[in-house]
C-alpha cells in the first residue's frame, strides 16, 4: 500500500528556524505527515466526520484482526472495535502527536478496553500530562514521530515469522510466557529468547532513530 501524504497546515504558523548560516521558513521544507495523523488531527481540532470515516475504514478492520488474535470471537471483537472507535472520537482531545503515533495511541486504547472488559475495576492508567498553555503544534516533531512509526513497521517486516509471532503474542494478549509456551508447544526458554531477540532487533532500530 502506498502511503499518501498531505501537507501539514500547521507549518504555516511556525516561526523561522535557523538552518546552517541562513534562516529558512519551515514551510519551505513542506513537511508531510501520514494521512492517519492528518485525519486524527482533523478529528481532534475540527470534529471532522469525513476524517473520522477514513480513520474508521483504516483502523476498524485492523483492530478486528488484531483483537481476534487474542482468542476473542468475531462478534465480541466487533464490540470492542466499536468501543475503541467511539473512544477515539470522544477522547480525541487527548491525542498528542508530539508524544505518540496514531497507531500507538489507538493500540493503548484497545488494550485498556480489553482489559477493562475482563476485570471488574477499571485499569489504573497514569495521570494525564498537564497541557502547557498555548502549546503550538510542532510540525517537525510530529513528522519525526511519523517517520519513526514507518521505520518501526519496516523493522517488524524484517523479523522472521517466529519472531513476529512471538512479539505479537507479547504485545497482544492476556498471556503469560508460560501460556504462550503451552499454546505453541515450544519450550519456555525458546519463546523467551525469541521475544528477546526480536525486541533487541527492534530496539536497535529504535536506537538508531533516536541517536
Amino acid at each position, binding site marked *: 500500500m502506498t502511503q499518501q501524504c498531505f501537507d501539514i497546515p500547521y507549518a504555516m504558523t511556525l516561526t523561522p528556524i535557523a538552518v546552517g548560516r541562513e534562516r529558512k521558513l519551515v514551510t519551505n521544507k513542506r513537511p508531510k505527515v501520514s494521512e492517519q495523523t492528518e485525519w486524527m488531527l482533523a478529528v481532534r481540532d475540527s470534529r471532522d*466526520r469525513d476524517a*473520522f*470515516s477514513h480513520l*474508521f*475504514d483504516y*483502523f*476498524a*478492520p*485492523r483492530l*478486528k*484482526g*488484531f483483537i*481476534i*488474535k487474542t482468542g476473542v470471537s*468475531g462478534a465480541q471483537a*466487533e464490540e470492542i472495535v*466499536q468501543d475503541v472507535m*467511539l473512544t477515539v*472520537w*470522544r477522547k480525541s482531545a487527548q491525542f498528542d502527536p508530539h*508524544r*505518540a*503515533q*496514531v*497507531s*500507538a*495511541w*489507538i*493500540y*493503548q486504547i*484497545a*488494550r*485498556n478496553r480489553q*482489559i477493562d472488559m475482563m*476485570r471488574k*475495576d*477499571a*485499569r*489504573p*492508567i*497514569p*495521570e494525564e*500530562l498537564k497541557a502547557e498553555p498555548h502549546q503550538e503544534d510542532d510540525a517537525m516533531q510530529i513528522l519525526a514521530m511519523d517517520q*519513526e*512509526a514507518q521505520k*518501526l*513497521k519496516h*523493522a*517488524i*517486516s524484517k523479523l522472521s515469522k517466529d519472531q513476529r509471532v512471538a*512479539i505479537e503474542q*507479547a*504485545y*497482544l*494478549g*492476556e*498471556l*503469560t510466557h508460560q501460556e504462550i509456551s503451552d499454546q505453541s508447544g515450544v519450550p519456555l526458554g525458546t519463546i523467551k529468547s525469541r521475544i528477546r531477540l526480536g*525486541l533487541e532487533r527492534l530496539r536497535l532500530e*529504535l536506537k538508531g532513530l533516536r541517536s
Partner: protein
Amino acid sequence: MTHVQHHIPDAMLKAYASGNISPHFATLVAAHISMCEICRVALGAHEAVGGALLDVTKAVDVSSSLKTDVFSKLDAPFTPKPVFDRSGIYPGPIVQAMKGQEPRWKSLGMGIRQHIISYDKQGSLRLLYIPAGQAVPEHGHNGLELTLVLQGSFSDETGQFGVGDVEVGDEDLAHVPTADAGPPCICLAATDASLRFAGLIPRMLQPIFKI
C-alpha cells in the same frame, strides 16, 4: 518532577503496555509513570511497537452495520469515566485504587503502619508508613516485590531510595530497609506473593496482617 534514580524494569513496562500484569503491579507502574518522565517515554516506545503491530495486522472485514452503529453514537451523550487526580503525596492511580478514600493505617508495631489497598491470590498492594530511623524487619520474598517511595526516603543494602524511586525485590533480595532522617517514609508496595519475615513474631502475624 523529582530526580528519579531507580526506575521500573523495562520488561515490566512492556507487560504493563500489553496488559500482562496484575492490577497490583499495574497500579504501581501507573503511579511511577505519573511521577517519571523517563518511564513515560519508555512506555511510549512499547506502545509504539504495539501500534506498529496493529498497523501491519492483516485487516479483517467488519460487518456493514458496525460503521453505521458507531456513527449513530457520535453525538450521543456519554458519561466519561471518573478521572482521579493526585491527592497530596498520592498520584492519581493510587487515589483510584483507594477509591478516593484516605488510607486507614493499622499499626504493625515499632511505629510502622500499613494500609492494605487490595489483596487477592495474585498478590497484594499496600501502603507502608515507616518513621524516620526505623527499620522494617528483615524479610525475603516468595516472589516479586516492587516498592515505590511517595514521601521521605529509605536505604538498604542496595542503595538509597527517594520520592519516585522504585526498588525491585525478588527471591534473592533479603533486605533491611531503614527510613532515613526527615519526614516519615511512605511507600507503595506491590507483590505477587506473601512476604516471609525472618523473625518469629512477624511470621505469626502474617495471616492477621495479610503481608
